């Protein structure tokens, strides 16, 4: 099952998961649980199609997806950071809101609460062929996947650098571990948490944009639980960008294999269970106990 097409498929299916789990990571590293990832993905997907539909430019769609993701995460930030309400409950409500609002808006815009029309997709990256064989060679590499796949991989590296090598990352992680210590040093916990949650929204919104633009259409509930899987991947990856991305790739691979295995005797439902069962097993400690940020889930 290591055919190139299967691996390709795995990477594409992992892409929205990777973006969303990186999003989850920034929020949770700042100490805020983000179950709202599911709703943010969905909103990002909707917004990207809406913007692409009206401008014809999928990159505007991408920007709209990011923006919409941040907008939704702003609700989460307000509810959990300013009002200090329960973070899980806020996330659950936001997911409900996103499901209702995207369907409602789809209906308002296109007259069907299930489907948008199809829009133009994103062109693959390429250098002009006239630049000669080298350009053509490069095109084989950079044109192999949709552009956002590369963006997602770059985001993993960027997230790693930001979290572990910048003052912002240090403070963000510190906020998730011990907010009163951060406060005592004169760093605003509120600002750090807002930043973490907004970044979370931007990344998950981008993930939603990929999901929708890759199929050229918005379909109701098209996030289909990916937000929760992204959350699981983040935990599986022990709250590290690289670990989370690897977990997403594993989940994407499991799904690709399931499709590739069709016609053979494995019931698809069992292959579908793999990521979930893996996560549970991983949490119990087969790969070592995952240690969440100490102040995760605690309002400050």
């Amino acid at each position, binding site marked *: 099952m290591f*055919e*190139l*097409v*299967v691996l*390709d*498929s795995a990477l*594409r*299916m992992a892409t929205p998961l990777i973006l969303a789990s990186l999003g989850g990571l920034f929020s949770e590293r700042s100490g805020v649980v983000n179950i709202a990832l599911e709703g943010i993905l969905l909103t990002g997907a909707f917004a990207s199609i809406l913007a692409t539909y009206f401008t014809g430019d999928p990159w505007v769609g991408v920007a709209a997806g990011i923006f919409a993701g941040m907008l939704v995460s702003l609700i989460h930030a307000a509810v959990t950071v300013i009002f200090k309400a329960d973070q899980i409950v806020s996330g659950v409500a936001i997911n409900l809101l996103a499901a209702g609002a995207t369907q409602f808006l789809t209906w308002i815009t*296109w*007259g*069907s*609460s*299930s*489907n*948008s*029309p*199809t829009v133009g*997709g994103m062109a693959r990256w390429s250098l002009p062929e006239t630049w000669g064989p080298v350009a053509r060679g490069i095109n084989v590499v950079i044109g192999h996947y949709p552009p956002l796949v590369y963006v997602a991989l770059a985001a993993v590296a960027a997230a790693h650098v930001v979290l572990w090598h910048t003052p912002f990352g240090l403070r963000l992680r510190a906020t998730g571990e011990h907010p009163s210590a951060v406060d005592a040093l004169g760093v605003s916990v509120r600002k750090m948490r807002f930043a973490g949650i907004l970044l979370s929204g931007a990344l998950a919104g981008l993930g939603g944009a990929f*999901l929708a633009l*890759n*199929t*050229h*259409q918005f*379909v*109701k509930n*098209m996030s*289909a639980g990916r937000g929760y899987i992204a959350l699981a991947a983040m935990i599986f990856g022990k709250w590290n960008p690289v670990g989370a991305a690897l977990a997403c790739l594993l989940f994407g691979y499991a*799904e*690709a294999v399931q*499709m*590739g295995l*069709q*016609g053979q005797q494995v019931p*698809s*439902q069992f292959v579908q269970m793999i990521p979930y069962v893996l996560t549970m097993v991983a949490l119990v400690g087969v790969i070592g106990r995952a240690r969440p940020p100490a102040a995760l889930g605690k309002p400050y």
Partner: protein
Amino acid sequence: RQSTPSQGTDAFKVGMVFDVGGKGDKSFNDSAYRGLLRIADDFEIEHTEFEPGQDADRETGLRKLAQAGFDVIIGVGFLFSDSMRSVSADYPDVRFACVDFDVRQDEVLPDNLAGLVFREEEGSFLVGVVAGLKSETGRVGFIGGMDVPLIHRFEAGFIAGAKHANPAVSVTVGYAGSTPQAFADPAKGKELAMLQYGRGVDIIYHASGNTGIGVIEAARETGNFAIGVDSNQNYMAPGHVLTSMVKRVDNAVYAVILAAYENRFEGGLREFGLAEDGVSYAMDDYNAGLISDAIVEAVEAAKAGIIAQEIDVPRE
């Protein structure tokens, strides 16, 4: 919701309840909806449609429509079969029609319930012939939505048609899932198709509702061909949709409403095949350049053969 019915007036009123995938799927539901719009245009008919939110709403929604004095109520999709049975029994004066009715063996339908079923295998056979003749790699593919007998009919007809045209052709088969959601997952459809194309398949026929939008997308992206289903989907990726197996749900819906409108509605199972113009393959400007005259001739020959019952099309 084009024209909201005014309750209590004498106008002839039709209610339509959609399947999973909903309005705008450019496929099955849209085909039914087109039929409704057309007859509403042709006659003085008020109509309303909706998509049930929760499963129990399927039955409750049908009942609400019946209570509200609708004359004809149409359920789009086999998931309505059970609810149709019970609601039609409760409201004998209202006429019901269910597209793709999931009939039981030896079941006798009541007078006010029409089951509209199609011989999809016949239309699928024709597009199978197209695929068999057109394929350069000798490998064609089929992607179904939900793994159920209804979709197996599409698969069986397609395989038979492809082999009929080219006995050496091989057919790769994939399904998006085993729940109704499998008809509404274009992302999954695209990946399934990418996998098949990646393995050398150059034409994929999909019977997967909304999911197929992804299949057609994959055809465009990889420069291969797809074959549409239910509605004419040739326009969706010009140059990449070879043809569509058109299931004339619109015609069936039109016919059943018209019958009720003219007071000659009859319950029972109604079958639509090639002979009844209930299924066909789509030819238009979008695919004129893709299908040679030779292929058209072969398809027409197969069509004549099926109508004349000289060709036996398998159902599963």
